[in-house]
């Protein structure tokens, strides 16, 4: 099972490092990252394999969201199927 982690907010040092550290710590294997910065606005989309998660997925979602709040970022973690069903026939 794969999850899409989207991170948006004001750019600052260590965003990717912070999110990746949580993924590594909880057993989420990062498969792909797209990231851009548009006039100080940071946007990253990460695809991660979550089969090896060491905590329940819902806790992982909350953990990333709380981390985002602590750094003034918006982090949404969602099952990839919602994107697949909506955009692929």
């Amino acid at each position, binding site marked *: 099972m794969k999850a899409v982690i989207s991170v948006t907010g004001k750019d600052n040092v260590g965003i990717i490092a912070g999110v990746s550290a949580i993924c590594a710590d909880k057993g989420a294997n990062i498969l792909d990252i797209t990231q851009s910065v548009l006039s100080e606005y940071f946007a990253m*989309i990460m695809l991660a394999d979550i089969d090896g998660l060491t905590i329940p997925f819902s806790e992982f979602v909350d953990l990333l969201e709380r981390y985002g709040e602590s750094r003034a970022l918006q982090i949404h973690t969602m099952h990839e199927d*919602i*994107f*697949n069903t*909506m955009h692929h026939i």
Partner: protein
Amino acid sequence: MLNTADILETINMIRQENLDIRTITMGISLFDCVSEDENRLCEKIYDKITKKAEYLVRTGENIEKEYGVPIVNKRVSVTPVSLIGGAHGKDAYIRIARTLDRAADTLGINFIGGFSALVDKGFTDSATQLIAAIPEALSSTGKVCSSVNVATTKAGINMDAIRLMGRTIKETAYLTRDNDSLGCAKLVVFANVPQDNPFMAGAFHGVGEPECVINVGVSGPGVVSSAIQRAGDCDLSALADVIKKTAFKITRVGQLVASEAARRLDVPFGIVDLSLAPTPAIGDSVARILENMGLERCGAHGTTAALAMLNDAVKKGGVMASSHVGGLSGAFIPVSEDEGMIDAVANGALTIEKLEAMTAVCSVGLDMIAIPGDTPEAVISGIIADEISIGVANTKTTAVRVIPAYGKKEGDTVSFGGLLGYAPVIRLNPYSPERFISRGGRIPAPIHSLKN
């Protein structure tokens, strides 16, 4: 492979444009609860509902978390209660309503539907007793919803039932007078009622349904509205395409949630209801879609045409996105639950006559409309008869959910709270249909050739 624009579009729909799943409704058959012993009947109803739907709320919350899409309501619908309480009288029906309410509290759901009777051709004794119990049942419970089907295209219109419902609505309004006659917000009168509707207050678990089933109602007026805004000054063919594509995406989410909920609860998937269900929140309004299509105000001349096109495009887009479609499927136009409708009524742009015309081309009917508290029973029956006739003549579902708000007059505001919203009391035609309504009897089923 997913692309970034698609991912951002989905996130934007959910976070900015209020895309949500309006309801996961579990339909539960109560036929095996029938008993001659009133206590036993209530006990079996409570046990069956709380057992079958034990994990409904938790499963809904888990899906919400995993997929990141809000699931606003988790609800239960049951077999029309008049079909299982035939051995008992009015007082037993009131007890059953309280039992349903208690089960809803235990489950943590916000509404339970099915305190219903089907009287399109005539009354069984059981249906008569249930209808007599409605005012007290709705005033002494918080979560029970009631509906009565008074007509079908095949059977015609039961005018005795319509006369009776005029009185029942007034009594319910009186008994819940301390809460702006809130009881009437939980009572719907139908023509051609669907058997698999997941939306309240009209949901019940039809007789042809399986033992237990999961039906899902989607939403997303805000998403359609934004898509229309982005489309700019295109012509209506292009606009219909934009609506179709958006409806497809919305419905796909509904299909995903429905099949996932059905799988996890080990219950068959029933239908997805292709609906545009508004809320009183800003940016979640069907009226604003119509205005974005180019009307100065919802209710202006042209509103019916715009709504007809919107409704049709939503169905065309949605139908391919789901394996089974059903329920009410279409754009809803409840006044108190739609910020733009409330505004249009308050401004005098939208009248009850225009709302009636709009219901001829969309789902569902005259919905959540506050009318003066002193409206005579016969006038309420007249409103019902008009609306039901539209459904019967056009072979579609129509319904009436009006609230004669006790002590309120035209121009006052009535507030129901939460998703039920608030509404200005609308102006009614002052002339009386009394003699017509008091004739009673049945309006014969309409002919379906010689169409004009």
